[in-house]
């Protein structure tokens, strides 16, 4: 079984994505190693499949780099459990860079 998640990029992150996409729909298995898929898997998927080059501008240490904000369904991911939030089918995940240098 798989789920789909809408991802969106802003604050300049869209510029480092393949074809400079602002939005994409990604499909992930509902579970990984028997555990529900978390937003960390979404981040790693984006890093490995959507970022055109310089993945360090998006992600370091298997999560988003400092200065990249994450919103899950229009809420701060910090109130949703951050990396361990279990993504649901049709969730919307927004990544915003706040870095001056992009």
């Amino acid at each position: 079984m798989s789920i789909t998640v809408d991802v969106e990029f802003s604050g300049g992150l869209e510029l480092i994505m393949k074809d400079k996409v602002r939005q994409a729909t990604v499909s992930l298995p509902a579970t990984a190693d028997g555990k529900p898929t978390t937003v960390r898997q979404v981040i790693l998927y984006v890093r490995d499949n959507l970022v055109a080059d310089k993945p360090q501008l998006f992600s370091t240490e298997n999560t988003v780099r400092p200065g990249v904000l994450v919103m899950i369904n229009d809420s701060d991911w910090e109130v949703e459990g951050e990396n361990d939030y279990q993504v649901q089918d049709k969730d919307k995940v927004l990544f915003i860079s706040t870095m001056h240098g992009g």
Partner: protein
Amino acid sequence: MCDSVDQSEHPAPRQARSQRVPGMCIKCKTAKPNVSIRLSLYCKPCFVKAEIFKFRTALNKSRQKANQHGTKLMAAVSGGPTSMAMLKLILDFHNVGRQGKTASTAFASVTVGHVDESALFPGCEDGVQRILQAEDVEVVTARLEDVFDSEEGLELVEKTVTPGAVRDKFVAQIVRQNPGVSPRERLKQLFSGLSTATNREDMLDSIKTFLIKKLAQSCGCRTLLLGDSGTRMATKVVTYTSRGRGYSLPFEVLAESQWGDIAVLRPMREWIAKEVAFFNRWTAQPSAVVPTFTTGAPAKASIDRLTESFIVALDRDFPSTVATICRTVTKLQPQDDAADAVHCLVCGMPAEAGAQTWRNRLTVSDVSSTESEGPVAAGAKPEPEPETKLAAGGIDITQRLCYSCQNLLHDAKPGTVLPEFSTHRYQTSDAADLRKQIEEFLI
């Protein structure tokens, strides 16, 4: 531990998250929170309300201190997230003030001052203009190349940078500009002659500051709002300190400072970048991605970038980092002699006397050991000479440069022509002998 400091304001690791009503918004205590700011949880409506309130409080306080009432106001807007949030907030403030009975809270008018940077960053201005046109406000725009729109220029002809010498020397002369070269081209030449991204960022800052101030003056605005967030301020403080800008730091980072007859207010300095991002998102405020010399470059591309990464990473683990730096900075006071100090020809800030002497006992000047040199940096540094003769018509401008701008010009090639404001600042210098020299030139 010093007990004059509020315990709650100490940097605390993020794990120690406090919740006044567990799991609920700190304001209404009934809604599920949507955002966490410095360990406090807010629901969406309470967050937006709290931010508007914070802006008004900061602006009223600053205005009181700067004694700016009923003046014409200019908001410096790049089109980036913080300045667009500020624009929304100031228009809201202004309109509410005008409609209310207490019309005294309104400004005489609000104008947007914008600097078009497309000469250096092509292709970015269209998006910014589109966003600005959508706002119900008058917009005045200056272009970066405007600082080269004059007949004369101050050209660096010579410099002696001798390690261990008593003093460095920078010699310049006033030249007539080649009318065949456009202002835009001259601007590009200036930037291609600066060897590092850090130096280019510094020069760009100086030019933008000058242009915004000039825009405010030409529109008769006595109050100028700058959209520096707390995150940006904290980065500036560390960058400027490492660049040797301590002397003029108070003028560049305080909540309110005076530039000549213009009161400069920074009402966004209590906002961290995250608050700006959420505010814009939840109030549907569009903004543009404003490029820099290091957009898309690694963190070590410039001192400013390196500092930003450091601050942002620290703030993620210790959410009071930015607030603590900004609060510490409010205690800075300009030195007594700064008011009378000469203004640096390049950055326009007070230049400490004797800067060139301690420049030689130098600490951090750049990150050239890690900084990748641009393709334009190939020019070899001139061999240091034991003695420098002033070239014909040459003027020793060393005393007219602040410590940091001496560093900025350290690597500049002879032949570099400075923006027209350098000529102007030089010409308005009080030194009589200098004035005489100019008069002779003009005859």
